[in-house]
């Protein structure tokens, strides 16, 4: 019986992860040492420079990098907070709720801007706007819409052309998509009109920014709304077939955040990782490619569109609020 118990204990990690990771990579240090386990929503290629930098300074460590969607990260981490050292996610609301619910370790040694951290536990390290990505060929010879209003007009003028060829996040699946949607809805009624128009055009729903951008590039989509501008900008370096528009009426901007699990056994190393990550992102000289956009360190007041780290982020995570919002959203988009 006891052996069975020990066996169960040994196999436990395997039992916990029958999960399909979007990506799973181990970055080996020079020597076989301890391993930091990072749960992240950021594509590996974007985050690799940060890990490489860390391993260069701490060769006795290895990093296991696990990629999942923001919603999956939240669920997985809540179930097994002890199994991960660091959680990186673009869904600010889910991250803030993790901290609010007491899952994060206080990192008192890290000196960060007040507006870019919450409770000295959640640290923002990028500023990434939500963008509209347009297929260049489709808009050749006509004015490129710069605001949501102009986009609505463009879509209404040529419904046949755009039918089935507009896309956005499926807010039911994607935490980041839900965050962008709720913040847009909070800012302006225009969001709902846009969603209705897109719903009439049989909008395609996506889990992730990458696929949306690829589909716009290939022409499968002509317009993608609320795409991560940073991913788009990185892809544009190699692919000129699409345009990136930051809506000038109100560019919703999110900050990617990281926290250290309270259940980590490697608090110091994790804190050091977060510190290096912030330092790496604050250093505009870095030439790594692809890279995540740096944190804009100008005062928050100058850019009201940045979603601020405050308890109000819990609002749309409320079960009743979410139910209401999803219902409304589905009424608008799925027809």
């Amino acid at each position, binding site marked *: 019986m006891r052996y069975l118990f020990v066996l169960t204990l040994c196999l436990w990690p395997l039992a916990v992860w029958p999960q399909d990771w979007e990506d799973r990579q181990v970055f080996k240090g020079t020597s076989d040492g301890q391993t930091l386990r990072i749960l992240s929503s950021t594509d590996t290629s974007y985050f690799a420079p940060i890990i490489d930098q860390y391993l260069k300074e701490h060769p006795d460590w290895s990093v296991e990098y696990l990629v999942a969607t923001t919603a999956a990260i939240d669920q997985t981490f809540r179930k097994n907070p002890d199994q991960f050292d660091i959680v990186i996610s673009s869904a600010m609301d889910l991250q803030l709720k993790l901290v*609010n619910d007491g899952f994060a370790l206080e990192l008192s040694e890290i000196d960060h801007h007040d507006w870019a951290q919450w409770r000295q536990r959640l640290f923002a390290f990028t500023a990434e706007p939500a963008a509209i990505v347009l297929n260049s060929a489709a808009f050749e010879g006509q004015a490129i819409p710069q605001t949501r209003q102009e986009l609505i007009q463009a879509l209404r003028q040529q419904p046949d052309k755009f039918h089935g060829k507009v896309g956005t996040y499926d807010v039911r699946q994607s935490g980041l998509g839900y965050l962008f949607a709720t913040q847009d809805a909070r800012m302006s009624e225009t969001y709902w009109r846009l969603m209705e128009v897109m719903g009439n055009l049989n909008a395609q729903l996506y889990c992730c920014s990458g696929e949306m951008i690829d589909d716009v590039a290939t022409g499968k989509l002509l317009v993608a709304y609320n795409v991560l501008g940073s991913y788009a900008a990185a892809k544009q370096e190699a692919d000129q077939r699409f345009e990136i528009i930051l809506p000038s009426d109100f560019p919703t901007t999110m900050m990617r955040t990281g926290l250290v699990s309270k259940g980590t056994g490697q608090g110091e190393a994790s804190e050091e990782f977060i510190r290096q990550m912030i330092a790496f992102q604050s250093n505009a000289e870095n030439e790594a490619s692809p890279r995540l956009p740096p944190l804009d360190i100008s005062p928050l007041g100058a850019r009201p569109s940045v979603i601020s780290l405050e308890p*109000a982020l*819990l609002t749309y995570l409320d079960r009743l609020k979410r139910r209401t919002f999803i219902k409304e959203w589905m009424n608008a988009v799925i027809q």
Partner: protein
Amino acid sequence: MADIVNVSGSLRNRLTLTLIGGAAVLAVVLFIVVRGYAAQIAQQGQDSILEASVTSILDTAILRDGQVEVDFPYASLSMLGTDSDDRVFYAIYQDDTLLSGYKALPHDGKSLQNQTVHKTATYVETHVRMATASRILVGANTRTLISVSVAQTQDALQVTLARISRNVGLFGAGFFLLSVLLSFWATATTIRPLKRLTGSVTKRGPKDLSPVASPVPVEMAQLVTSLNSLMGRLDTSLRQSEDFIAEAAHRVRTPLATVRSHAEATLQRVDRDENRQALRSMIRAIDESSRAAGQLLDHAMTTFRADHLERVDVDLVEVLQELVLRLTPFAEMKDIDLVITGEDQVIIQGDSILLQNGIRNLIDNALKYSPAESEISIRVTSQPKPTIEICDQGQGFPEKDMDQLVSRFSRGDNIKGIIGSGLGLTIANDVALAHGGTLTLNNRPGGGACVTFSF
């Protein structure tokens, strides 16, 4: 006089300590009261924000098709943002069923309507401040109670309280320091009349027993009255005893003169040596008594005149010459030369009779203690201050108790067989003091005593 005073405690210290102690107690009370009040206000601030949050959530609760919807605004939780990023928890209950929010928040299920309840609770090992309110929703066939709780940790409140404590602490300390300074000042001010009285009594001349005339505070009036009456009685009794002595001396001197003339007459008539010897002894004893009585009179007179000093221009040289003239017969009996040197005229303000009296006693002394065939030099100068120096060639003052010699009835221990009452130097000293001067005794290096009488 009594040099040792039985001292117990200090009025100044007691007053200062009482005031400082009072200030310390006040400062502590101030700290506790203000801090408590500030804490209450800070707590009220948090409570009212929580209440606003609860109200804004509760207001959005509606029944739609029998289902409760609570579409609360972003501001409901946004208003709870603090500098310390306090954690926020909330729970929405329909009757006793959790609709949404944090299940672990305490819920008592029977909260009052139309009234927000505030309490401090514990949520997962964290102290939180919580506000709860409820409202009844009425549907087609249903009535349902919706209750909303919003809770917040108190990190920012603690920071505020720490800041308030520090500020109030500093304020209290400042108040205390100021009070300490004021205590010292108040004590000094209170003690000042006492010091002034002490000073005025201390500064008085030895014979001044007049009542204290300067104004004193009402608390000291009784003390000063007693002091004045004591001094009055002392003055009266002193005056009475001086009068008595003068009267006695006078009464004794006159019969003595008669006795002496009879003895002299008898001396002429008796032939037997032993009888003559006895008579001579008798005459000497009579002289001694007569001289003592004379000096007692002198002393009484000096005391009286010193109390009522009349100052007129007196030429010291003139006084000296007159005295020398009068004393020359006695000096010649012992072949002593009286020599006056110095300036021709030294004018001072003083009582000529007193001065004569004092200086005569000094020259008398010099004559008495000088050996035969010697010289007594009297020197008068006006610079730097009017001074008379009388020096003899006798054996000088005894070294060891020279300061005692000016007190009454005190005589040196090297003058056996010389008639004296011990009042001569006392009289001279009193005269000098009455004129605001001093009498200095010293011995000449080559032998002989010197008395310096300076004004």
